[in-house]
């Protein structure tokens, strides 16, 4: 659970912080820094089908089940039974919650036609709300929706408005945290001039269709007395209901694992510090078509199965049978792993459903299969019909989800021809831990596959481009020939290697000749040194003799001078 305390915001002072009620909607409590304002009404506005009712109901159910705050759901959008069956799929059991007295649903359809015969008021609205609130001691309420109320009494908008205002002020007096849903009009937040009365907190839900694929967005338009995320956040309606995807506030809490996993490709493990990738990390394999991306993904899968681990393989371009057949040609027996119940395929055309639904499906399958490794081939096809920002936000969430579950993710991404290779269209490259780039190298009439590690966090990795060989014996990486003529692959590499071997033989001979010559030279030098040494010794002996004889001469001279002095002076001994 995310509370306001978990959100790091140095600008807030806890003493002044508005009390908030968590909604339990994944991501929303992060964006709103704790939830909705306690004791105040929040307007949730959006077009039909945007998920307003679900937002309201999830807020109530979370309060009832996790916060000991019973809730009242007052709905004019349809019968109670219909509502109950709609939300059963999301794991919400309205009947049980009602029996336990934690939730009270007062739902009706406004489709019934009434004959207006004169003046009336809407006092019963207040009576119903008060009755429900008092019955279960509610702390949270939701009214769904303003639109249906105004529609039912379309002849008297002023009456509906004044009755609603009375109801809102009663809710505030009772300190009830409320969610009120309404449709958005062209230029105002909601129709019927209600926005000025519901301005403490306004959440906009949107549901737009971009290139035939529906995407959902959420934005907190205002939140009086509180900071909040101001962006437009994509959200999805998944198996657990609404999920907001606030990439900017993704917590980085996942525990790291230093265990290394083999990639299934010997040469590749060597390039990755000799051990492969970290367990629970995310690996991106990008490249243009035909560079062997799927094969790399399949190798990861096969290696995991070999360790006895479960793998979930999502394919958005090929069927399970196509992949198994194609991989059998490079000695990857995927069918065998499927039979042994270690490998699960989920193959689906990317266009069958919207992006958020794809991700919801993926998440559901991940929960069912409980794999240790997930292959998504390719993530780039998910972007069809969706704006890039959406896909990257969704994938960010997915990567985060897999990481926090400790599941290794291998994603392939197709780079369109002409695009910069070291640039993923989905802008997820900064999120992945290991990025392998599959390239093609064209030389001397051949097209050869190459692979290099663009980045790999937390490990020493090779800076080499290696040639990626696919053969009936399997998949392998061999060092490319790197010579004075540049990088050579394929037959050119083989030729260059052979030529180098020839050259090597010649060089060996040359070097032995050189060393012989050197030995001779050494002997010559030694001889010269010896003779010079002899000369020096002779010189030294001569000098020593000369020194001795000059000393003797000096002694003789001094004795002669002393004798002369003695003969000339009285006291010759005292004179120097």
């Amino acid at each position, binding site marked *: 659970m995310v509370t306001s305390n978990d959100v790091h915001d140095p600008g807030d002072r806890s003493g002044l912080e508005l009390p908030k009620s968590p909604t339990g909607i994944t991501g929303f409590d992060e964006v709103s820094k704790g939830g909705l304002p306690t004791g105040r009404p929040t307007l949730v506005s959006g077009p039909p089908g945007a998920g307003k009712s679900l937002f309201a109901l999830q807020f109530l159910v979370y309060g009832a089940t996790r916060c000991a705050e019973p809730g009242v759901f007052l709905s004019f959008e349809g019968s109670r039974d219909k509502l109950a069956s709609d939300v059963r799929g999301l794991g919400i059991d309205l009947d049980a919650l009602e029996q336990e007295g934690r939730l009270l649903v*007062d739902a009706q359809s406004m489709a*019934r036609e009434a*004959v207006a*015969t*004169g003046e009336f008021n809407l*006092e019963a609205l207040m009576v*119903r709300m008060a*009755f429900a609130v008092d019955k279960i001691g509610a702390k949270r309420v939701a009214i769904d929706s303003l639109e249906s109320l105004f529609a*039912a009494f379309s002849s008297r908008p002023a009456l509906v408005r004044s009755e609603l205002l009375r109801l809102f002020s009663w809710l505030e007096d009772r300190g009830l945290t409320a969610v009120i849903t309404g449709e958005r009009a062209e230029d105002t937040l909601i129709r019927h001039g209600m926005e000025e009365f519901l301005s403490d907190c306004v959440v906009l839900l949107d549901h737009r269709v971009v290139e035939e694929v529906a995407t959902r967005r959420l934005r907190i338009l205002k939140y009086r007395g509180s900071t909040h995320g101001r962006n437009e956040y994509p959200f999805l309606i998944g198996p657990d209901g609404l999920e907001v995807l606030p990439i900017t506030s993704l917590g980085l809490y996942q525990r790291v694992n230093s265990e290394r996993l083999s990639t299934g490709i010997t040469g590749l493990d060597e390039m990755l510090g000799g051990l492969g990738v970290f367990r629970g990390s995310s690996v991106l394999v990008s490249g243009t078509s035909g560079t062997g991306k799927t094969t790399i993904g399949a190798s990861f899968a096969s290696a995991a199965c070999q360790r006895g681990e479960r793998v979930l393989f999502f394919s958005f371009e090929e069927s399970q049978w196509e992949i198994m057949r194609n991989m059998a040609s490079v000695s990857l027996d995927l069918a065998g792993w499927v039979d042994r119940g270690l490998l699960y395929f989920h193959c689906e055309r990317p266009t069958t459903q919207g992006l958020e639904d794809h991700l919801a499906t993926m998440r559901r399958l991940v929960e069912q299969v409980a794999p240790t490794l997930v292959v998504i081939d390719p993530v780039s096809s998910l972007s069809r019909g969706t704006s890039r920002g959406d896909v990257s936000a969704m994938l960010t969430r997915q990567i985060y989800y897999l990481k926090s579950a400790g599941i290794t993710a291998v994603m392939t991404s197709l780079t369109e021809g002409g695009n910069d290779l070291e640039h993923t269209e989905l802008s997820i490259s900064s999120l992945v831990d290991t990025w392998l780039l599959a390239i093609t190298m064209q030389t001397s009439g051949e097209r050869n596959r190459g692979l290099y590690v663009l980045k790999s966090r937390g490990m020493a990795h090779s800076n080499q481009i290696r040639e990626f060989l696919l053969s009936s014996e399997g998949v392998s990486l061999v060092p490319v020939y790197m010579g004075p003529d540049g990088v050579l692959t394929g037959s050119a590499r083989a030729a260059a290697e052979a030529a180098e071997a020839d050259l090597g033989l010649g060089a060996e001979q040359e070097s032995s000749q050189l060393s012989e010559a050197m030995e001779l030279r050494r002997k010559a030098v030694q001889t010269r040194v010896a003779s010079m040494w002899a000369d020096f010794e002779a010189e030294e002996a001569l000098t020593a003799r000369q020194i001795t004889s000059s000393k003797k001469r000096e002694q003789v001279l001094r004795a002669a001078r002393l004798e002369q002095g003695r003969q000339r002076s009285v006291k010759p001994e005292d004179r120097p």
Partner: protein
Amino acid sequence: MSVSAGVQPGEGEPAPVRLQLALFISGASPASSRAVRRLRDLCDRHFPDGYDLEIVDIYQQPEVVVSRGVLAVPTLFKELPLPVRVLIGDFTDESRVLAALGLPTSTDS
């Protein structure tokens, strides 16, 4: 609720089933009292064979308000004869009340 089988009430035909009404009002407010008086008077005049009128105070029986889905006050349910009709308002528009209750509207009234 007892329903007589084969009854096909229509415009202009007297209803063979006794009129059964449920009126939701808010307590003892002057507006509510006026609405009750107006309805009684109208029914007394147009249904000489008698009718059943149940009056529900929304403040006294809120659970019935919920179960019947009442929002407007006053709300009148014409339970019988079928079909059930819902009338909201204080019965000032007499011709609409009569039409909804299954009586022909006299042009001169």
